[in-house]
């Protein structure tokens, strides 16, 4: 059965039999880059139409239904529109930083793709600090937002940028601590190790209550970190028009928009890797027959299924809850999420030391 890792191996073998090693590596890097960019494009199209349909159905509406069959080509039409629109730069703006900011957001989103395991043995870079790498790079996202907000020379943008800065810096803590809960269970930061440790059950099931609490706090924290409703104070249409990307138009706006969706995808992919076993099929302890049946479903389907399920949950949050006020936002983080995750981490450590987990 052809799988992603199989195809990758075939390409590698074919290239190395025809070319020398440096050229092979270069071509493979180019292929990986093109693959990541096309994944971005597809993700952008799919997630935008998914968001619009989910939001419509949750609000008892129909959603886009004019372009293509059942409106499924709507996001393609939107992309086309954004591509041909003029990209304006306000005259009072710091032009260099204004034009740089969306690309920074995009580059960081691309770099974050590196340690994600999309299928069995199919990963761009299995570095031994996988999860730390993700949390380190996602903290750089805030720079692009601050840059955009500042260089737009607009008070709404500046306000939005400052809010999102405060928000991302604070929620990074509880996202990191929740991820650390699973790392304490596995004892490794490497993505492949984390997934392999879930071969006899996903952590959310075999990690007792701490894993469940960590899962909930992680989902809340990454929702805040990706600036999505109910934590979308940085964009807050009703207060700040559009926050840090008020002044952006055309393709530069599209890059910010795409980066937001790709960040949601990455956050959900990381959550799926940590708590739901990444590409690992649903296994239960020693039920070998059952596990064997589950293995027939390809690993990439497991991975994308879990990730899109989590994306759906985050969209569900967005279309159910009203936006928080800034003080409520900071209260939630510092008075609730952070103490809970810290106590939870202690509990996890105790469980691991006493050997109570499976």
């Amino acid at each position, binding site marked *: 059965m052809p799988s992603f890792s199989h195809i990758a191996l075939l390409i590698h073998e074919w290239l190395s039999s025809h070319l020398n090693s440096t050229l092979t590596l270069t071509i493979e890097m180019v292929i990986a880059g093109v693959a990541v960019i096309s994944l971005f494009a597809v993700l952008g199209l799919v997630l935008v139409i998914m968001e619009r349909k989910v939001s419509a159905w949750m609000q008892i509406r129909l959603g886009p239904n004019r372009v293509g069959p059942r409106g499924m080509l709507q996001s393609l039409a939107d992309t086309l529109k954004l591509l041909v629109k003029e990209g304006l730069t306000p005259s009072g703006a710091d032009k260099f930083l204004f034009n740089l900011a969306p690309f920074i957001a995009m580059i960081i989103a691309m770099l974050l793709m590196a340690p994600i395991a999309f299928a069995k043995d199919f990963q761009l870079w299995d570095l031994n600090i996988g999860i730390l790498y993700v949390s380190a790079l996602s903290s750089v996202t805030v720079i692009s937002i601050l840059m955009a907000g500042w260089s737009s020379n607009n008070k709404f943008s500046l306000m939005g940028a400052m809010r999102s800065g405060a928000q991302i810096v604070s929620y990074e803590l509880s996202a990191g601590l929740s991820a650390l809960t699973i790392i304490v269970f596995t004892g490794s930061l490497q993505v492949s190790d984390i997934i392999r440790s879930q071969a006899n059950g996903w952590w959310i099931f075999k990690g007792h209550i701490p894993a469940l609490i960590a899962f909930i706090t992680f989902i809340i924290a990454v929702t805040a970190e990706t600036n999505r409703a109910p934590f979308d104070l940085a964009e807050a249409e009703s207060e700040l028009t559009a926050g840090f990307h008020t002044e952006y138009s055309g393709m530069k706006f599209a890059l910010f928009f795409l980066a937001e969706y790709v960040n949601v995808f990455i956050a959900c992919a990381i959550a799926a890797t940590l708590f739901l076993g990444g590409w690992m099929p649903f296994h239960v302890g020693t039920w070998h027959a059952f596990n064997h049946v589950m293995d027939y479903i390809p690993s990439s389907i497991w991975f994308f299924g879990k990730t899109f399920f989590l994306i759906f949950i985050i969209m*569900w949050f967005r279309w159910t809850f009203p936006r928080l006020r800034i003080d409520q936002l900071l209260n939630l983080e510092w008075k609730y999420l952070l103490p809970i995750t810290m106590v939870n981490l202690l509990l996890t450590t105790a469980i691991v030391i006493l050997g109570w987990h499976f």
Partner: protein
Amino acid sequence: MGLIKYIKNVWSALRSLAIGMRRTLYYFTHHKEIITQQYPENRDTLNLPERFKGEVVMPHNEQNEHRCTGCTACELACPNGTIKVITKFDVNPDGKKKKAIDKLVYHLELCTMCNLCIEACPSDAIKMAQTFEHSVYDRSQLTKILNNPGSKIMDGVE
């Protein structure tokens, strides 16, 4: 106890969030609840809500008679001067002069569909219609005269 209150707080927050999410999930899975109408396609079978208000009209019966006495209650009730009642004096067969309307001018472009004129009318002469395709090329077409030409007041309406 502070700690018990804290835990209760967290628990009730999670519970109330779950209630909200259950509602949206219900709508997400029950597409029958969708209230959007596919307007240009279903123009013939359009189903407007009972309380939808489109414009003020004055109903006439078959003898081209209306119920308006020209009392100007609607004009006084209107908050933004949408209605202007122009009255005249009719001469009865028995020689008595009687006040009646000449024209009831209605400015649709000023109307906010607040329904106050309908409430104010003592003789139920005007009502809200459910039309909504009001767009025209010239705004003077939005100034309408509600009583039909040559119409007169119904018998027995004082």
